């Protein structure tokens, strides 16, 4: 027992000292300012567009970029609100259109000048809603392997086919943005009562509700499910990375919801000018091309898709959400969704 405790004390003391020296080395660096960028893991991971943007920006800005990972936009918002200026966020990435109400309630954002940017028509409609600016977008749909089907499902009723029992993975709308998008889209196209009635039937078909998009897609990739709710651009990922043309996004008769990801500069930023330059790089043609190719999402500016595989993605019918539900409405809907799950 004594040896065990001495050993643990030894290891923890070593770790403590190593951490102490690591932090003191960090604080005695050069005098360049540090731009703190808060974003999602997929954006700042080594496979995402973050590292390229960092390298490109640091070449010209005489500054450092520090990426801060946030698994979830809700946690990110809580952090921004609780830490305020002390948190030091200069740029925040990764909110979707449903987070904007929350993001603008109690938090001030700087206006970003987008006068000279030629946005795609499909994103113009979300531009005027706040000081946050979209930097990528995609439609969502059910993604399948063609080889698993004799004929592909074409509408929501096709998903209720008994052959598909236990083969569909959805994301939990309480914790995942695509999950919430699906639920709100269903309500938009069917009306609330009918949407929940349909959901009751669809839940019987599900393999599971995954807590996040990556968990859900992992199940699909492991062939534990034949259908996953994902982005229409997911097929491009398989085409580019695996040379696999078997994975496709279904074209649904009912249409498809769109997800936009936004970037913003908090009013409490410390390096505001650098933040504006970073956002300008994000929205530049090469920035947009990198985001498109690394994040596998559509660019928001015109003239980027041409000549790439993204130009070959068919034009899916977009469902325009006329009025976005309020925060209170969303909470009520999610409560109703949870009740439905409990009663099954």
């Amino acid at each position, binding site marked *: *027992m004594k*040896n*065990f405790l001495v*050993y*643990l004390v030894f*290891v*923890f003391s*070593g*770790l*403590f000292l*190593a*951490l102490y020296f*690591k932090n003191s080395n960090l604080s005695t660096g050069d005098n360049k300012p540090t731009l703190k960028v808060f974003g999602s893991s997929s954006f700042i991971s080594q496979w995402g567009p973050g590292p390229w943007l960092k390298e490109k920006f640091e070449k010209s800005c005489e500054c450092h970029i520090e990426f*801060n*990972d*946030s*698994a*979830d936009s*809700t*946690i990110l918002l809580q*952090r921004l609100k609780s830490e305020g200026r002390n948190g030091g966020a200069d740029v925040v990435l990764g909110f979707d259109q449903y987070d904007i109400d929350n993001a603008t309630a109690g938090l001030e954002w700087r206006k970003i000048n987008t006068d000279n940017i030629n946005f795609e028509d499909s994103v113009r409609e979300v531009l005027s809603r706040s000081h946050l600016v979209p930097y990528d977008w995609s439609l969502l749909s059910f993604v399948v392997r063609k080889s698993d089907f004799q004929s592909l499902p074409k509408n929501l009723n096709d998903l209720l086919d008994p052959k598909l029992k236990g083969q569909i993975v959805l994301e*939990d709308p*309480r*914790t995942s943005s695509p999950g919430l998008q699906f639920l709100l889209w269903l309500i938009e196209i069917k009306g609330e009562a009918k949407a929940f009635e349909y959901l009751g039937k669809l839940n019987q078909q599900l393999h*599971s*509700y*995954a*807590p*996040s998009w*990556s*968990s859900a897609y*992992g*199940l699909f990739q*492991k062939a534990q499910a034949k259908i996953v709710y994902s982005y229409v651009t997911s097929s491009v990922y398989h085409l580019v990375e695996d040379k696999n043309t078997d994975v496709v996004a279904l074209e649904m008769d009912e249409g498809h919801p769109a997800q936009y990801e936004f970037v913003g500069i908090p009013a409490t930023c410390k390096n505001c000018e650098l933040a504006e330059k970073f956002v300008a790089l994000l929205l530049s043609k090469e920035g947009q091309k990198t985001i498109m190719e690394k994040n596998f999402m559509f660019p928001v500016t015109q003239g980027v898709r041409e000549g790439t595989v993204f130009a070959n993605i068919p034009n899916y019918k977009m469902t325009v959400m006329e009025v976005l539900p309020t925060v209170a409405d969303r909470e009520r809907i999610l409560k109703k969704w949870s009740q439905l799950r409990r009663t099954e």
Partner: protein
Amino acid sequence: MFVAFFESVKYVGHLLPISFLRVFLGYYYLEQALLKFRGDFLMRPRLAAQIAEVLPTLQTPDWYRLFLESVVIPQWQIFSFGLNGIEFAIAISYIFGYLVRPMALLGVVVSLNMLVLAGPQTQDLYKTFVAIHLLMAWVGAGRCLGFDYYFFKRRRGIWW
């Protein structure tokens, strides 16, 4: 002590394949621990974010959920440091074969927690880890190609 380290192969050679598995697992834990140490795991609430992500769908007793919500998430610095420290401790223990039995039991506790918290995509991995840690504790995997042999010879007891 070093003589005993290599001499162990002669006397408990039947454990040699398991000691290779032990060293491999130790190396894996070392990689994971270094990744966390070099990244921002100890500086940012990554652990809290990971827990918050799975919390709504967690199928666990209420006391465990309450513990995560009211103790682990607010005190994420302490738990991140603890987790990283335990990973280093398991790594060093497995690589050098020192105190493998108690560290393997600690490994079981950590793996069971990660099994619950890491989400469905890594559940299989942590289930396998639980099995391997139990095996290490059961056979006393530090007795072959490890310093546990030296202490076992002199002191006996269940720790080695």
